[in-house]
């Protein structure tokens, strides 16, 4: 777009340009979904290992859920890397940051509660919590897999009130799969497809 060549735009051309630019900006919103994939894998693995320990009566020698703390490191690394590469800030980014920070703090408090009172009976609450940011994120970005993931978390949360701990862990693995892992893979594929289109 050079000033020298700039001609008076017709009504149609102006509207077409506006819509084209808004479309370009929207396509820039596509994230890689790496955080979603990392956390999805983590929840699925930790839940299945916990289920296996209860089901087959063995102990790994450490609390597998401590892996969650290990995942925070790559999460911070990828977030900083992504932030450095980004050349714009979206309207909903700050809202999202607050939603997921709130979620992280609440999960930490819930874990602390569980540890303090030595109770494993709060898996339903964890699943309910998983559904909240997932549903909000899906709703704000009109991303159906995450909306569905949030609803599945809540459904499994209710279901887990009637099942033993070992089954709860399978439910929790399903939460990780449907709320984060699968939506993350869909986001990653979209990102790759979008990149291929831009080449």
């Amino acid at each position, binding site marked *: *777009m*050079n*000033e020298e060549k*700039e*001609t*008076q*735009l017709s*009504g*149609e051309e*102006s*509207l077409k*340009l*506006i819509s*084209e*630019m*808004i479309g*370009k*900006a*929207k396509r*820039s919103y596509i994230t890689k979904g790496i955080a979603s994939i990392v956390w999805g894998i983590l929840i699925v693995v930790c839940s299945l290992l916990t289920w296996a320990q209860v089901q087959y009566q063995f102990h790994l020698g450490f609390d597998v859920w401590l892996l969650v703390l290990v995942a925070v490191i790559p999460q911070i690394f990828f977030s900083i890397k992504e932030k450095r590469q980004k*050349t*714009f*800030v*979206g*309207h909903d*980014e*700050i809202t999202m940051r607050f939603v997921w920070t709130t979620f992280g703090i609440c999960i930490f408090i819930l874990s602390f509660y569980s540890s303090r009172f030595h109770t494993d009976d709060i898996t339903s609450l964890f699943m309910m919590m998983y559904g909240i940011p997932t549903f909000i994120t899906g709703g704000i970005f009109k991303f159906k897999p995450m909306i569905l993931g949030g609803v599945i978390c809540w459904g499994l949360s209710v279901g887990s009130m009637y099942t033993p701990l070992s089954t709860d862990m399978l439910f929790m693995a399903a939460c990780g799969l449907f709320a984060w892992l699968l939506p993350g893979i869909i986001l990653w594929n979209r990102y790759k497809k979008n990149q291929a289109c831009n080449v």
Partner: protein
Amino acid sequence: MFKELDPILHSQLRLAVMSLLISVKEAEFTFLKEKTNSTAGNLSVQINKLKDAGYIDVTKQFNNNYPQTICKITRKGIDAFEEYVKALQSYMNPNGQ
């Protein structure tokens, strides 16, 4: 009676920049350059015109020793953009007024 189109916005590159900025909270100069496929010089001139009109805020800063220009649409810019789109729609669909 047709509304007059805002001459500041009725220019290809300035309209493209405003359309991008209305879609995001803020954007770097490089983002605008890439999306509009414009030259740095031309984009810089058009950004200054939008800034002088009070339609955008421009902040210059350093990030890791690299100069960074961040543009953000202002309230006045949003109002002007909305008015421009309304005026365009009235041109396109005069019976719909």
